[in-house]
């Protein structure tokens, strides 16, 4: 088991190495170089030379690459051009916000998706089933940024039940130890702050969780349908087990493998892809940081952010592979 994990971790090194080379080339492949792109219409020869000097773009390519690699291996992406802050520190500071949002979204997606898919499978070819299938098709077709706005309009602006943007009410004071608002408010034993943080999580969580919800429900339905027709389920029923026991021990457990896979893959995507939801709800996580950096052509942030999120993405996928082995003894043995 440990050997498997170590081998997979070692395989990640060439991938990340290759990605860093691609990012290096990509930014320098611009017509006129990064300085021109950065300055846009404000570009004058003097300012371009100034920027090139400041960021080392005037040095020979190979020197640039060596300095770049030396810094990347230390996970130093330099200063953000627009925020004038250390990129890595900023990424780390904002990451908890993104994790918190992704967890809320996953909680919603799993909590609704698995029961929905399960019930649809148990009632195959009924109106409930057709309804669930249709709903999940709509769920994967709805643009996140549209859903987010509609939720905001209905539940925040019209009904005034939930806050529109941000992670905490602006007036609330909370000491940040971990930057996870839920954890920090628990540490401070502040019930009001906890409730406030949760209220802020609901709408973005639903918006971000809808696509994974639809996918999880579909996979659960398909997987349960397959297991329901298996012989051991019939045997379990025939030997007089209660329906709930059959469902829990035989049906759900055996249909878990594809479900866990898809949950893992979606978690990786959420952690790295909350760009749109964070923008709609002004969440202040990594996604919003990167979306802003893309518009401002803040290359250090883009380079650092893409590397950081790619690492998170591949690590989460690795965890999924390891989880497989725990769930399915067949994989563990081979």
């Amino acid at each position, binding site marked *: 088991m440990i050997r498997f994990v170590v081998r997979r971790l070692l395989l990640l090194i*060439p*991938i*990340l190495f*290759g*990605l860093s080379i*691609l*990012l290096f080339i*990509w*930014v320098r*492949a*611009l017509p006129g170089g990064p300085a021109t*792109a950065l300055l846009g219409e404000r570009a004058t020869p003097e300012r371009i030379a100034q920027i090139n000097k400041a960021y080392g773009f005037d040095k020979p390519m190979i020197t640039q690459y060596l300095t770049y690699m030396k810094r990347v291996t230390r996970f130093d992406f330099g200063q953000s051009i627009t925020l004038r802050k250390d990129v890595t520190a900023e990424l780390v500071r904002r990451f908890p916000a993104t994790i918190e949002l992704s967890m809320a979204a996953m909680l919603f997606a799993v909590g609704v998706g698995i029961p929905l898919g399960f019930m649809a499978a148990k009632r195959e070819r009924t109106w409930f089933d057709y309804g669930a299938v249709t709903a999940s*098709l*709509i769920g*994967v*077709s*709805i*643009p*996140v*940024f*549209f859903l987010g*706005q*509609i939720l*905001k*309009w209905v539940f925040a*602006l019209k009904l005034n039940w939930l806050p529109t943007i941000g992670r905490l009410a602006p007036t609330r004071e909370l000491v940040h130890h971990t930057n996870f608002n839920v954890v920090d408010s628990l540490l401070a034993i502040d019930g009001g702050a906890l409730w406030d943080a949760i209220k802020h999580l609901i709408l973005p969580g639903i918006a971000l969780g809808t696509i994974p919800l639809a996918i999880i429900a579909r996979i659960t339905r398909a997987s349960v349908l397959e297991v329901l027709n298996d012989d051991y389920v019939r045997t379990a029923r025939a030997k007089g087990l209660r329906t709930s026991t059959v469902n829990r021990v035989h049906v759900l457990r055996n249909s878990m493998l594809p479900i866990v896979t898809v949950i893992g893959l979606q978690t*990786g*995507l959420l952690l*790295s*892809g909350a*760009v*749109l939801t964070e*923008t*709609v709800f002004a969440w202040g996580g990594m996604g919003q940081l*990167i*979306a802003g*950096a*893309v*518009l401002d*052509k803040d*290359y250090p942030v*883009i380079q650092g*952010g*893409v590397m950081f*999120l*790619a690492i998170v*993405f*591949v690590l989460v996928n690795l965890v999924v592979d390891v989880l497989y082995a725990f769930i399915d003894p067949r994989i563990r043995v081979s």
Partner: protein
Amino acid sequence: MSVLTRRQRADQLDDPDVANSLTREAWRRIRQNPLAIVGGTIIVFFVLIAVFAPMLAPFNPRSNAWFDQIRPTSIPGPSRDHWFGLDEGGRDELSRLIFGARASLMIGVLSLGIGAVAGAFFGLVAGAFGGWVDSLIMRLTDILLAVPSLLLALSVAAVIGQSQTAIVVAVAVPNIPLFARMLRSSMLGERQKDYVTSATSVGVRRRSLVMRHVVPNSLAPMLVQASLALSTAIIDAAALSFLGLGSADPGVPEWGRMLANTTRLLNVAPHLAIFPGVAILITALGFNLFGEAVREALDPKLRR
């Protein structure tokens, strides 16, 4: 499949097209699938709108002739003259939606087309040559697949700058490794099959073996992937334009951007968010339904 009478079976044997029955069978399945009919209708509807946009749109989508009716606290909603109301710049919303269909469909189809063709090319080269060429291409796809697709698209668009071309390229790039891997792996699968061995043994040359036998037989999964990926391409393109990466000219109607512009105005004019959003939703749904039907038709495992 139901049991055929002897007469039907004889007819079928006489039918010269039976040799081509995989495609015909798939097409028959698609036509009989209600998902395909609903999805297809939606697609045809939006394609027609996009094609005939100049004839269908009541006004010029860029004309802001009604700007004097726009107030910070009120924007006229649907009326007799403007069925879908006015937008925040005093332009006719319906005309913008109609021309927006053009931009959205074109960007979606173009970017998927470029991604699929480029991906197929790399997959073909990898599958046909094998060896170090194959390893090199596969390691490159590993790298691209390590970055989630929207993030990859964003970083590509960041470099190219604000334009519709940027969106097309940005949405195309994440599709390249997917299609490359898919074509390669289905080519490898086909290579094991008996017909390849027999073709080799009768002396068919390598190039015609690959191009005339292996590739055509490996295309089915590509087709499925392409039909399902179209809806993602359209949504992702709208997402990039929502984030502000589309054309730098605000007069150009794009659904994603129309939605972005109205974020501040949700309370004043919710219709401006609802119309383009629903348009993206329905188009994506149409492609998803149709893609699902194509998958059911071509995937033997799903046949009942």
